[in-house]
């Protein structure tokens, strides 16, 4: 049989099919990529690189720990010190995860953490069990960890150069001020203070001290936030008129109902020292371990969780203290005797703030920051920055969507090169990392970018970076990411929210006078510390059920 057209068609016909499919796949992919590149080029966003921190050289920094509870232990781990109990618990958890085929990397991450040039030399905790745990786990024969009965003894001992303060909120300022007055470096947990007067006093003390002062907002090390700052500066979002931030937690741990230690008693706890300036009440384990639920020692959602969200945005936008705050809410999900709200909405007004404008000059100015929280629902509501030109979701990942009514992107939207449904930018440093998160509360913090950041695709504990920066500044000098000004902004914003909720009225900030505008006949500090009338007192049937 000779060659025919039919034979050629059936023999060679598969080649054009192959070519067509190849061409379609290649040109489609390359074309999409080119379109994307054009948009990215135009946006010109520079993903942030980790800041180079000079090494903590010389003799190890001698650190004293004040408060060795849940957060105190976490901070020590970031310094490279884990308790025997934690290591045993993590080994068990890792084995269980392995059996169930889940990733679980807490212990591995801790062991891979870069060593910091520090030595924990002292501990101060009013609960014997905790102080002894630190001494046993961290001390060696050559380098024992000394227990101090009071923070003043530790700070004035001359044996610690720096202190880490992880106590209940009402102790943050007195301890920080004492340390700064003695030129002892301070790393203090948030919120920085518990009332207004001590906030002003602490600012003064920091200004007059040679010591380095860092507030524990570790997310300032998160690279996505630094990248977000670049995005805002390049006016990619246009004028941001609204920011929505949220807390949704729905578990006991998230509602601050922490475990009560079986060995807790008036014999093992120095109750008077715990109380400090708080109202005198008889020994109460519930108050000791779950202090975040009472205004006398803690500050509820506004001090504990709003501060994270406020400072995340203050880190990105540098918007400072709001001109006014209005808050509302109540105790709706955990009626267990607490007097801090568990549902809280706060609106902060920044009428003079602007992230830039792409419209007629003067048309846009001012922004509202809202914080909406419940401890009775765990649905994840993302943090959104809503601008005239684009919306951005802020977390460990960043996603930007163009807005349908944008001025800046009007042409591309018209030409179909952009659509409000498709992100124009996506920053996901975790795309090639597996995260083993152990609890709902850690997931809550992880999603917000509060637990770790990603450096070269690898997960790094942001608290570690935050402490490393502090130690480096102690030895080498330099600027801290969350120093006194950032802490001051955060504390004032939190206290304004607490006051507004308690008084049921608008609280205003006097920028020139640098103080919360006084309200005639009201002692604002007293209001902050007290339980609002009727709040936290329960009906007989609820008490009986507890």
């Amino acid at each position, binding site marked *: 049989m000779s*060659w025919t057209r039919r034979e050629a068609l059936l023999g060679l016909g*598969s080649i054009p099919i192959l070519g067509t499919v190849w061409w379609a796949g290649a040109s489609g992919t390359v074309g999409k990529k080119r379109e994307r590149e054009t948009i990215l080029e135009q946006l010109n966003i520079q993903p942030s690189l980790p800041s180079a921190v000079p090494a903590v050289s010389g003799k190890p920094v001698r650190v004293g720990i004040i408060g060795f509870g849940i957060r105190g232990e976490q901070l020590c781990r970031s310094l490279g010190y884990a308790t025997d109990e934690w290591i045993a618990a993590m080994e068990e958890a890792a084995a269980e995860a392995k059996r169930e085929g889940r990733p679980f990397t807490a212990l591995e991450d801790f062991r891979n953490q870069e060593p910091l040039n520090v030595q924990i030399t002292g501990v101060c905790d009013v609960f014997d069990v905790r102080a002894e745990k630190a001494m046993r786990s961290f001390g060696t024969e050559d380098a024992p960890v000394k227990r101090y009965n009071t923070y003043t003894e530790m700070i004035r001992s001359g044996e610690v150069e720096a202190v880490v303060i992880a106590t209940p909120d009402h102790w943050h300022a007195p301890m920080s001020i004492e340390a700064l007055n003695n030129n002892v470096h301070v790393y203090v947990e948030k919120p920085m203070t518990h009332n207004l007067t001590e906030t002003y006093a602490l600012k003064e003390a920091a200004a007059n001290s040679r010591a380095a002062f860092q507030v524990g907002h570790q997310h300032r090390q998160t690279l996505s936030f630094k990248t977000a700052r670049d995005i805002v500066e390049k006016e990619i979002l246009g004028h941001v008129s609204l920011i929505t931030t949220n807390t949704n937690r729905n578990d006991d741990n998230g509602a601050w109902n922490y475990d009560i230690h079986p060995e807790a008693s008036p014999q093992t706890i120095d109750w008077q020292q715990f109380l400090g300036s708080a109202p005198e009440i008889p020994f109460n384990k519930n108050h000791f371990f779950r202090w975040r639920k009472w205004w006398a020692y803690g500050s509820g959602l506004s001090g504990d969780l709003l501060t994270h969200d406020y400072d995340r945005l203050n880190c990105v936008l540098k918007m400072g203290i709001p001109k006014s705050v209005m808050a509302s809410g109540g105790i709706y999900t955990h009626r267990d005797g607490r007097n801090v709200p568990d549902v809280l909405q706060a609106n902060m007004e920044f009428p003079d703030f602007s992230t830039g404008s792409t419209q007629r000059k003067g048309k846009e100015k001012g922004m509202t920051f809202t914080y909406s929280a419940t401890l009775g629902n765990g649905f994840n509501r993302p943090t959104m920055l809503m601008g005239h030109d684009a919306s951005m979701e802020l977390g460990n990942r960043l996603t930007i969507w163009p807005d349908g009514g944008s001025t800046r992107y009007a042409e591309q939207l018209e030409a179909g090169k952009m659509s409000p449904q498709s992100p124009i930018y996506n920053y996901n440093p975790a795309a090639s990392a597996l995260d083993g998160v152990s609890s709902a509360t850690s997931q809550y913090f992880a999603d917000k970018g509060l637990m770790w950041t990603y450096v070269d695709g690898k997960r790094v504990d942001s608290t570690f970076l935050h402490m490393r920066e502090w130690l480096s500044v102690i030895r080498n000098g330099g600027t801290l990411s969350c120093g006194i000004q950032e802490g001051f902004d955060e504390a004032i914003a939190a206290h304004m929210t607490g006051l507004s909720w308690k008084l049921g009225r608008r609280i205003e900030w006097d920028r020139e006078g640098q103080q919360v505008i006084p309200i005639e006949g009201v002692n604002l500090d007293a209001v902050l510390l007290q339980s609002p009338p009727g709040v936290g007192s329960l009906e007989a049937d609820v008490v009986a059920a507890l």
Partner: protein
Amino acid sequence: MSSSFKAQGKLWSLALLRVLIGWHFLYEGIVKVYNPDWTSFGYLATAQGPLKPVFQAMTSEAVLPWIDTMNWAALVFVGITLILGVLEKPGALVGAGLLLLYYLAHPSWPGMAQVNTEGSYWIVNKNLIEAVACMVLFYQPTGSLFGLPRILSRNKATTKTELS
């Protein structure tokens, strides 16, 4: 309907199936080749079922680039062989193997979360069906009907005729 017409119809249907499966594989492969950002990380990291540890182990930094390369290379290989009808038996085998791996990474078994799937499946899904179709192609090659072997075998036959 004559029996030869039936046999012809069967073979032509199989040839069409071969080209379509090849098309599917080639396009999936090419899209990955030309997209340097593509990675199988997400697919492997979210793997389910009994082989979950195996697939998750593939996401390690040292292994992942190899897995990614092997994946697109296998896709393109299957695509080319099935479209052209050259080496169609090895192509069909690799295709079936690859699809079974995809199936096992995200099995549509009761109790397993279905991630990123369109449609509803119970045990059987499209990956499994396409894998079985590849097995059919393995047992019934059609390259000499439609594809390069038609010309190659014709040439061979012609040569043979001339030689004899």
